């Protein structure tokens, strides 16, 4: 998928107009641009920036919805309560663990899927492509229920099918402890989101110049050498974008945990913690503070990716 069109700047700038008309024209264009894009921009700010500012404000109060008379200003007190609570660090740890496991597995699996799709014969390609889109399009809650019921000791088939595996028997209670619960949660997440990664990687694969591949082949490079020296370096941008999007997405994991474990056996994620403080306990102050911290974590990850790994979105867009 190479970019064929010219950047818009060159198209819209007339070559030989008097100076004054350029500035008039560009001013009009600027105004038109904002008039067209402004509403979307405003709506985006309104639905996110405003609530998060509100959350920052609320996080400074001790405020329980069922006890509005006792609302009081506590400054950064809520943050102190959260940061000194092992529960926060444990949720954060679980969230990071889930993020790392799912993203790592998805990257490898997604790459394999992308390779197969790239090579798949044109006769079966539509079938494979439609199939792979289905996990992407299925509602997360539905996927969570499907995986939960499959592993459930009463309704599931996993125990009877995989009893030959060491550690699995008819009596294996997958949701009974931390490790096995996490395995199922991660499996469901991986199943659901690998297709997205693999499609991004597939697009990246298409950007690798065929000439280089051929040249390497002529030089006698093995498949693995070509993969390492030619394919992967040329896909670096696509890989990084896929990693960034999926990491941020995985970090917000909520639906699967809510459905499958309800946070039992220490499987609570940061999003789930925030949900329980606000929506379940109605502790608006504490919950807002958790939300703000979660937001900061996400910003930090995004920033880390963009600065640390030099993810250049412009480059990834193919504008090099």
């Amino acid at each position, binding site marked *: 998928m190479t970019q064929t069109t010219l950047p818009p700047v060159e198209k819209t700038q007339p070559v030989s107009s008097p100076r004054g008309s350029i500035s008039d024209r560009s001013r009009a264009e600027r105004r038109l641009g904002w008039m067209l894009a402004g509403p979307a921009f405003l709506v985006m700010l309104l639905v996110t920036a405003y609530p998060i500012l509100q959350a920052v404000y609320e996080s400074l109060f001790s405020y329980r919805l069922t006890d509005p008379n006792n609302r009081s200003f506590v400054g950064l007190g809520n943050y102190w309560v959260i940061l000194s609570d092992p529960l926060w660090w444990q949720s954060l740890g679980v969230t990071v663990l889930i993020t790392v496991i799912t993203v790592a597995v998805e990257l490898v699996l997604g790459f394999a899927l992308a390779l197969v799709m790239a090579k798949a014969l044109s006769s079966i390609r539509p079938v494979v492509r439609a199939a*792979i889109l289905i996990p992407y399009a299925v509602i997360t809650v*539905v996927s969570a229920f499907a995986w939960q019921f499959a592993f459930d000791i009463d309704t599931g088939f996993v125990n009877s099918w995989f009893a030959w595996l060491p550690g699995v028997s008819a009596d294996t209670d997958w949701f009974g402890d931390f490790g096995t619960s996490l395995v199922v949660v991660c499996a469901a997440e991986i199943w659901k989101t690998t297709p997205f990664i693999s499609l991004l990687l597939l697009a990246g694969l298409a950007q690798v110049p065929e000439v280089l591949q051929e040249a390497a082949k002529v030089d006698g490079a093995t498949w693995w050498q070509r993969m390492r020296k030619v394919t992967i370096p040329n896909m670096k941008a696509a890989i990084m974008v896929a990693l960034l999007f999926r990491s941020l997405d995985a970090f917000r994991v909520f639906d699967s945990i809510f459905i499958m474990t309800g946070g039992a056996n220490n499987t609570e994620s940061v999003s789930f913690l925030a949900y329980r403080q606000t929506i379940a306990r109605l502790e608006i102050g504490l919950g807002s503070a958790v939300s*703000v911290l979660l937001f900061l974590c996400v910003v930090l990850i995004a920033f880390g990716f963009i600065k640390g790994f030099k993810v250049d979105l412009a480059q990834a867009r193919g504008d090099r």
Partner: protein
Amino acid sequence: MSSRERTWWIVGGILIVIYALFPIAWIVSLSFKSAADIANGQFLPTTWSTENYSFILTGGASDLFLPALRNSFGICLIATAISCLLAMFAAYAIARLDFPGKTLILSTALAVAIFPVISIVTPLFNVWRQIGLYDTWPGLIIPYLSLTLPISIWTMSAFFREIPWEMEQAAQVDGATTWQAFRKVIVPLAAPGVFTTAIIAFFIAWNDFVYGISLTSTSAARPVPAALGLFSGASQFEDPTGGISAAAVIVTIPVVVLVLLFQRRIVAGLTNGAVKG
């Protein structure tokens, strides 16, 4: 490609299809198990029963499920339409015009897309209950825009960039009016991009769970994913596994149909938006 290699790629393709469809097949199979059969420990039902479907469509859970289905469709379609409309203007400006706010808008969209939903649900809940938007359609449509609008802007501006806009001028040179040029030349070129964007935005809205459970509390606005958690078995202590499975199958049908009909476009839209923007 040697024929051995070819076989291997076909095997790989089949494996992918199994990977993608197996959990779906499982929930379909589960939805056809009767209450007594649900714990049979097997993949397939012993006898195929439609009692779960009658339970959610005409039976005890229909009061829960049918309004939720209507809410889900209505809310998601409206949110999709609004975000596509807004994104269309924005994407046109980004692809076609030269103005300094472009990068700002694209990066704002990116920032909103990575925003943790749970962080805004708390303040939204608090504001909504004060201004009376709690448990209403607009109360969900507005937050859904935060999910659908950013991806719509990215995807659509990627599509619009590939439109050969100079054809419009060419048509005008050939004697068409501005409006004719727009309608006959640009609209057909832009329509597929808008349509694809709409499908992707719809998927995202359809998938929402956090807003659904936090900002609603009755069948006035409750969408299907949130309603699934409310099903009950024969009594409050009995598990509604079968009903949930049947409802899960029903809400999966629309997305599967969309995927089957428009798979090529969806793939283009997803990769365009993210990789090329």
